[in-house]
């Protein structure tokens, strides 16, 4: 995982989980969620297609928002908004 914080109006964390093998990108997302505050944006990059249903399930469970999930040449870019902690 490679985590960087970029300059945005709201805290915006990029979590690079590309090529992550077992246990996979959800580990990185969970870690980022632990450190987040309400209002934060987490942008997760992944290559594992299994991340899509996991993100939806995660958002349902935690009450947070999946803003978008896009595929950019095999790189899945998911933008998540933390609305609940």
């Amino acid at each position, binding site marked *: 995982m490679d985590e960087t914080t970029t300059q945005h109006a709201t805290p915006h964390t990029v979590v690079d989980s590309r090529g992550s093998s077992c246990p996979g990108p959800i580990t990185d997302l969970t870690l980022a969620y632990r450190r987040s505050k309400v209002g934060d944006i987490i942008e997760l990059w992944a290559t*594992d297609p299994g991340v899509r249903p996991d993100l939806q399930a995660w958002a349902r469970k935690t009450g947070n928002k999946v803003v978008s999930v896009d595929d950019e040449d095999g790189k899945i870019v998911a933008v998540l908004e933390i609305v609940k902690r």
Partner: protein
Amino acid sequence: MGERVVIVGGGAGGTILANSLDPKRFDVTVLASSPVHLFQPALLYVAFTGAHPRATRDEHRLLRRHVRFVQDAATKVDLTDKVVTTSSGARFGYDAIVVATGMAPDPSQIPGLAEVDARFGDYHTDLAQAEKLWSSLQAFNGGTIAVGQASPIVKCPPSPLEGAFLAEELVTRRGLREKTRMVFFTPYPRAYPSAPMNEVVEPIMRARGIEIMEFFDVDRIEPETRTIRSIEGDEIVYDLPIVIPPFVGADITYEPCDVVNEDRFLITDKETLQIKGVDRAFAIGDGSNLPTSKAGVGAHLEAKAVATALAGRPVRFTGRTHCPFDVGYGRGTFVIGSYDAPVVKARPSRVKRLMKMAFEWIYWISLSGVIEPVFTVYFKLTAPKPAPASGSVPDSSSSLT
């Protein structure tokens, strides 16, 4: 004099690496805070079966003659000036460095966990804690056993579930199953994080009546009400909590300081194993931030990859994992994958469990590096198949030889 290589850490990764370097080319020093080498997977059996394996060896004796062993803890690693400073004040200059300091339990991250750990024990810290957990299981007389990991970072991803399976087997053998509620909690969306493997183990858990609480990321433990609470807002009231603590990297100050992340894991190139932006500096094993399982097998393969790199040959670490998985009642399986090949389903069997048990004595021999050709063949034969759609570079385990 050969190139001076300092290896910080004398665990699974550091020991194999030290023994793999050619004494004609390298002047090797292993610096480790402990003189004792612990075979950590044994903690599972100490805690859940009361086993008394010979789980420790003298690290000095595991190293080949040419390797200099220094028992001292590194406190500062200056990657710019190429000097390691230790707690006794000694300084070691080097030409190349490999950090193999593993990761340490950090119960302080979760309020209430230190108290629970001290009272009930756990199976990821050391032998004394594992023995304490065995005593807690012996004293258990019915009620709720809650097993799980307190943070997403864990040694050996199957180990939380192995604990649940072995605890269930134990209470059944002790005739307490009817009086016991078994709960497994996990921060992941499913019992085992990788979906194909979950399809194998979840039905076994359901058949054995082990409840699964998914997306249960431990926020705090309240010992006075015996309650574990999650960030997601759920709770479990326990009689016996078996909580795997969060982990952090070694307590070492780095120069430059931005080579470690918030949890002190070294930011490491996932294919070359080089520490971010530093020449002839590598990280292997649990102490790196590689996006793969924290396991001895990974530390082993990473050590071999770094030995190849130090010898000046090109190498690509494939992210190979190969974790044995005890599902209880004498059966086991393996979780096998890599960066390019997702984990696939592997049915449990008695033979796979026996292979896991055999690993205990193979481990000590493997540290010497002498049976490496056998491992190379074994890892090749069991190599996972790259995902067809990924279009990525084929598995190059062979380049690790």
